[in-house]
């Protein structure tokens, strides 16, 4: 009975997200591929907040689904099928929230989400595309009078140009490890270098942020930063992959619809077996991704024995496959796919970003081998 109720809730969520994407995002896809974002995109963000997509994973008393990843996956994949930039915003926020909750900072999260009457207040920027374990941390924290101050640069902070706050990792002197700090980006000691010009996800921009002794709040305990990160990373990787999975679904559907209409050599191009095979591969990738991700979300939410391996299996597959599959998505449309007549080229660019979430792809595969093969 309980399971039925949950399944129904998820169905309703999916329906609501699809309606939202069709109404608020689809009509203005072309103009929403830029920063500063259009008024319509800003309105769509506010509407998504109103619909609680930005708090979908929060505890139930904060109107979320109580830490479950599947509802987030539903939101992300359905939205990203249309517009991955919006998906990336929701993802970034959810990752930052999750780290803070893992660090035990429930009150702060509640405070931020509760008070928000304006979208910027709710957004928490986060360097989603770096791995503090792998990449050099260029930010240092100093403790003075019981308060922390940050100095240095946080690189590639996603939503940096639009959020009120950022959650960033920083090192304390020469001590090993790192901690996570919540910092107010409106402080005069924080200065964003402006939106980074990048391949894709233009409406979800990143920036390098310089801190010059900016006061910041430590989340949880300093020495536990790597643990918060690792726990969050594996749990949230399928969510990142859901954005890429959405891109694959979108790319496959647009290719299919075009190939049914376009004629060359006297027949619909879908009737050329070589092209049909490309479409078949695209479908295979999109559906395999969907099945793997569904399985991964359920394993994570049920804390099943192999949840981490299932999460990694799905994520590694989807994040890598999306780059190839969206390239085929352009190919299927020929010259039209390469131009802004279609959204295939945008999906291809966006997919490149997803591949680097939580650090670059090959180290992730090596980590997968370590976990999956126990070696």
């Amino acid at each position, binding site marked *: 009975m309980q399971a039925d109720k949950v399944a129904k809730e998820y169905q309703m969520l999916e329906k609501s997200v699809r309606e939202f994407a069709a109404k608020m995002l689809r009509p203005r896809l072309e103009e929403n591929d830029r920063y500063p974002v259009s008024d319509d995109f800003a309105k769509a963000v506010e509407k998504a907040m109103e619909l609680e997509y930005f708090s979908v994973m929060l505890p139930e008393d904060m109107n979320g689904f109580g830490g479950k990843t599947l509802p987030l996956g539903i939101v992300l994949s359905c939205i990203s099928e249309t517009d991955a930039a919006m998906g990336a915003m929701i993802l970034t926020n959810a990752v930052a929230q999750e780290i803070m909750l893992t660090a035990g900072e429930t009150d702060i999260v509640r405070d931020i989400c509760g008070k928000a009457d304006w979208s910027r207040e709710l957004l928490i920027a986060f360097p989603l595309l770096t791995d503090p374990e792998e990449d050099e941390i260029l930010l240092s924290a100093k403790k003075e009078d019981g308060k922390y101050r940050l100095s240095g640069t946080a690189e590639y902070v996603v939503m940096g140009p639009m959020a009120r706050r950022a959650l960033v990792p920083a090192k304390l002197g020469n001590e090993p490890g790192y901690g996570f700090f919540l910092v107010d980006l409106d402080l005069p000691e924080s200065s964003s270098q402006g939106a980074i010009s990048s391949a894709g996800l233009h409406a979800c921009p990143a920036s390098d942020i310089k801190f010059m002794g900016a006061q910041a709040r430590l989340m949880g305990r300093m020495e536990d930063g790597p643990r918060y990160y690792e726990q969050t990373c594996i749990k949230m990787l399928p969510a990142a992959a859901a954005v890429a999975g959405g891109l694959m679904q979108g790319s496959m559907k647009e290719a299919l619809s075009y190939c049914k209409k376009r004629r060359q*050599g006297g027949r619909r191009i879908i009737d050329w077996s070589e092209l049909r095979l490309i479409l078949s591969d695209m479908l295979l990738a999109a559906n395999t991704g969907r099945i793997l991700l569904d399985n991964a979300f359920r394993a994570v939410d049920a804390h099943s024995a192999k949840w981490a391996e299932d999460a990694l299996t799905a994520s590694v597959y989807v994040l890598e496959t999306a*780059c190839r599959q969206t390239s085929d998505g352009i190919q299927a449309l020929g010259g039209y796919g*390469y131009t802004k007549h279609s959204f295939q080229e945008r999906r291809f660019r966006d997919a490149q970003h997803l591949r680097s979430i939580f650090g670059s792809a090959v180290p992730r595969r090596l980590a997968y081998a370590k976990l999956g093969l126990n070696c």
Partner: protein
Amino acid sequence: MSLSISNQRLTTMEDWFDDNSASLKAISSQPGAMAGEIMEVVNLARKFKEEFIRPQAIEMDKRIQEDHSYLPEEWVDEACRRGFFTLCVPKIFGGQGYCFPALSYFMEEIASVCLGMANIIGAHYLGLGTLICTWNLPLIARVCREIVEGERSGKACMVSLAMTEPTSGSDTPEPDLLDKGQVACLAKKEDGGYRVNGSKIFISNGHFSTWHMTVAFEDLARPSETAVILAVRNGAKGFQVAGKESKMGQLACPASELVFNDCFIPNEQVALSPDMTRGYSRTHREIYQHLFDDLCSISRAGVCALSAGAARGAYESALAFAAMAKKKGDYLINSEWVQCRLAEMYKNAVVARLLYIEANYANGNHGIYKGLQAKPVYYALRYLPKSFLSWGLGKALGLEWLTGLIRKRQLSGFNPGMVQRTAGLGALAKFASSDAACENAQLAMEMMGAKGLRHELGTEKRLRDIKLLQIYEGTNQICRMDLFRNLIARRLPQAKLYEECV
């Protein structure tokens, strides 16, 4: 499916050997001085690349991303000032007369930094190459004279190829597809010329070019039998260079829409028409196919050169990154996986280069370059003074029977086996190299992670630019079919092309 395997040999040893060892034959047949010419041209490209393109490529890409209507005229002016639009125009037509294979090496150099700039130059030679493939000597002489004059005056005179239509992309150069397709560009024969109606899309350099080699059809129901190739000049009444595409990459090189509205093209600008091939030993359809096979033999070798350059550029940026970046306190380059990936990228760049070299050797041995690379012709063109050559050309052009004879010989006297060899290799070179370049771009992005996404490093630009290589000059799917048609199917009478059996 019934299957009876006969002992019929489908590939002879000779085919396999001769198809794939053009370089061996070239050792003795091609003029030795070509190597020196190639090095001269490579040095010109390197200088241009370092002095002009590298410092600006990324900024220009950003500028056009912000304003898709922007046209980098200053790049065209600079290429013109440096003589790049006459580089391979034969001396007899007033150009600098560097051998055509040198152009591939030249393009590779420039493409290693910016495919957009490389395509500006490459698409000009694609247009000119189309005209040359029609063997209409008076028209070639006229257009070349203008190109040379444009260079002298500092206002570039460029040529584009206008083939693709809104409803006809892959179909247009493939008679087997074309006749079942939906072309719409109509050329109605009238007294003194043709009246053209229709439109062309995705035409590289449309906004920069003075001349547009336009493929149109007298009868839309019988396109391959009635194809005409017209040299349309800017300013012609009823002709308009309309919109400019917003596209993902190669932003410096515009892709344009051309519109023909009752546009009259006089006979002197008709490069090829069914009237002209009447009485030849081959049908107009066969000549159309041969012309595009010849053209693709060289233009696809050209795209292969672009791919080789782009693959090299991707390799170079990944190498620079791996050599400097540190992960967990050590240089990235000290990871074995990085070393193997760099080796793979190096391989892709080199294999792409070898492919265009081989394709160009084939073009020299049996294809469109053959005449120009015959040693007596080559050395005569190289060492005789320009004034003498132009006097000789003037005389020859006065002899209609002579120009007619040359044209007839070139258009209908071809050896199908040789055309198959060059066209097959061109197709192979194009799809293999562009796939390799795309792989390199993806590998570079993967290795660089978030850094690779930053516009300022140029890696993501290269990825956007490279994807086009798999699409234009025949999509890679069509190129595979061309390889099959030319090199595999020739001893298979039962093989049918573009007729699905499933």
